[in-house]
């Protein structure tokens, strides 16, 4: 199996690794970069659970190869405070607190990807109306919550 050397900044930490060219970014981040908070649910780019921010752009880590992240900076759930631009309070950012307050998660498997994408979304669109929130959420599947509480949690933190 052909391997390549890559250099990636993951949640602010510079990493170098030799990876098989076919290794998915999601597997690299989980297995070699210690990002256990990145969850793979569908593996084909539909559900959004594995969303990370790659050089400022939200992407599905299950649809990229690790070698495609060479030279890039990746932000996962561990970078949520940076993505939100807020220091966590008692370990939780405002978005995380809002999700907890509104019971916007049940099994929690889709949650980290949803939080990463939502933090990035709100950074670019701080006061979205409901329609914009729904459009944003169309990229994410949650099977537990019925979505209403997720929508409410996001509405509660918008500027």
């Amino acid at each position, binding site marked *: 199996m052909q391997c390549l050397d890559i250099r990636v900044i993951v949640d602010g930490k510079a990493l170098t690794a030799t990876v*098989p060219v*076919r*290794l998915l970014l999601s597997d690299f981040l*989980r*297995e070699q970069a210690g*990002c*256990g*908070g*990145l*969850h*793979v*649910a*569908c*593996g*084909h780019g*539909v*559900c959004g*659970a594995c969303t990370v921010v790659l050089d400022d752009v939200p992407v599905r880590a299950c649809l990229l190869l690790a070698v495609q992240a060479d030279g890039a900076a990746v932000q*996962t*759930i*561990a970078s*949520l405070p940076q993505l939100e631009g807020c220091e966590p309070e008692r*370990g*939780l950012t405002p978005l*995380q607190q809002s*999700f*907890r*307050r509104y*019971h916007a*998660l*049940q*099994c*929690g*498997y*889709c*949650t*980290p990807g949803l*939080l990463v994408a939502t933090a990035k979304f709100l950074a670019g669109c701080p006061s979205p109306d409901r329609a914009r*929130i*729904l*459009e944003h*959420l*169309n990229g*994410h*599947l*949650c*099977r*537990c*919550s*019925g*979505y*209403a*509480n*997720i*929508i409410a949690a996001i509405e509660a933190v918008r500027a």
Partner: protein
Amino acid sequence: MNTAAPFGERARRREDGPLLTGKGVFLADLIRPGMAALRVVRSTRAHARITHIDFSAVANDPHCLGVLSAATLPEGMGRLPAIDLVEGSLPAHHDILAREVVRYVGEPVAAVIAADAYLAEDLAARVAVGYDSLPPVLNVGEGIRADAPLLYPQFASNVVHQTIQRVGDPEAAFARADLLIEETFHFQRVCASAMEPRGALATLEPGTGRSLVYSSTQIPQILRRELARLTGIPVERLRVIAPQVGGGFGVKEAVYAEEVLVLLALQRFGRPTYWLEDRQESFLASSQGREETLRVRAAVTAAGEVTAVDADCLADIGAAYLFLSNTPGAAVASLRGPYRIANFSSRARSVVTNKTPLNVYRGAGCPQTTLAMERMMDLAAQALGLDRAEIRRRNLIGPDAFPLDRGVSYPGCGRVIFDSGNFPALLESTLEAIDYHGFPARRAAAGERTLGLGLSFVVEMSGGGGAEPAGIRVLPEGRLQLLSGITPIGQGSATTLAQILAGHLGLPLTAIEVLTADTDQSPDAPGTFASRGATLGGNAACLAGDLLIREARQLAATLYELPLEDIRWQNGELIGRAGVPEPLSLAGLITKAQEHGIDALRRLQVSGRYERDAVSWTSACHAAIVDLERDTGIIRVLDYAVTHDCGRIANPLLVDGQIMGGVLQGLGQCLFEAQRFDERGVPLTQGFMDYVLPTAATAPRFILRHIETPSPLNPLGMKGAGEAGCSGAVGAIANAIADALGPQVPFLNGSGPFTPECVLAMLRRRGGHHEA
């Protein structure tokens, strides 16, 4: 009973912290370097005889750490369990690995073990399996024909299970009826689609050398028992742990071949071995739900009283039993829902077909019966020119009728005896919540939009599965560990159980830690299913709490040399009538005991079993308003009202979450979801690109209300809350769509799914333009 503060509060969940920060430990997070990956070689044929399995292309590959096939399984190895078999059921049990015949696409045929999942997948692709195709049976209609191909020739029939119920004199009632309605309902196959796929990992426990199996399962205790049975490993040499489970909904309520295979691989090849399901595999080889054909006849008087119902259910259970395959069909026993209907007969047959095995999926048969019964009520109202709410009002069981023996049995849970409820109040509340009386004006004002309103009642069994044990350990600082058999699957059971126990003992919520889902810690309990967690787990926790109070009082009585009756437990503390200077906390008791050389922690360790019959019946009235776009056939659910009665509510925040999540699953079944097969039995839906799940934009505006009629069957007065949201939704939405389409449109009875294509086809049939 102490009902102090924590019970009933909208407490935020203790589970949330790790889940929100990405620190939750799911099955995939337990994989460590050096563990081997197992890949299953799956059947590519729906029905075929295996001619050969050729491992020669992988046997000498240095990456191959081992292979497994039926021929190399331990001699005499059993097959997967099914726990809902009635007398006379035919033994259509699922093999661990297919022996001679494969019966569905995705059936495990062999397994390959390699150093990582990529290599294992490479190797699995190179295992050559030869097949001689056999004609497949792809639906129940084909399956019951006399000349149908047989999945199990030794049975001489594809019907493997049958339950019959009868109440009163249905024939006489049909003979006297003013109106007869007969409809056949089709329910498509759906996939529970928990966000976390299944997975299992087997390793050796350091120190003890015991086999340690982790699985994303709802039933770790049952899994341990069955793994012991299948592998011959003594049960005490096995430990099973369910880590964070990323959604269950019934799909993780079975013992699966892969859980056995990782353990066999560990035993045989000596490497800790894991298997992680990919999404395609979940569509092929995780249990599916709902598929059945249900024919219903109703006898109705001119005044709108339904006097008899007869139902005939053919459940398509797929290729073999998977734990509770027959339950969904047999649940036709509770078809009458909240309506009196004095006469009833039903037959439920389970038919094996060459498709993935069926199992319970949230609601376990109740969504089908609810939809059918509620459509029949609307059709009767329409035929008689009655208002839809009024016909329900005329048939509802009254609030004073409980306990009410319905004269039928529910598979595995004994006689159906409704314990409590107030159905008329549920109806009136929901009518108000959805503004039923204002709806005609709203519809008229909708202009080009076509609105429809649908009502649906659900009465659902909850809390089955048998007795529930629980234990309590006291820590030196006086905090408690509740040892519960309720496995968390996202429902927040640790929060709920802590609230219940804290309320019962008068302790703060933070004083209670909940330990579950580890066969070393948690008692040998059935697990999480059938909406049983809060009711059974909660009452068992209180029972253990009572034992703790007794032990603590006895210990204090000994220490202070007082008669037992002079020591009371109040608000989390011991109070003595005399001689005990001030209220004594558990921590104080422990310190005092230590001064006397007594091991208080051991004395205060208690366990008990909640043995009372706890099957209680949750009820709800749902109403949906849908918007039909006639040009495109797109249906949107705008408003959704539920009045729900699950007895006393431990945490309204979490119960509402259960209801909304359940409604969206019912909405998905009605509007989007269908597992489809081609004419050879190959699944056409193998991922979320083609299996459409509800998204946030499809969520309605919710109006949730509660009526609490406590169940008299358990001290807490609780009834289950996990499923009635899902079970009621399909009926309300289907009725709302039929209402939007209008009586002239021949409605496709069942749960659709009512995709735009389906809706447009119904509209065209009305116009006389039949489709080719």
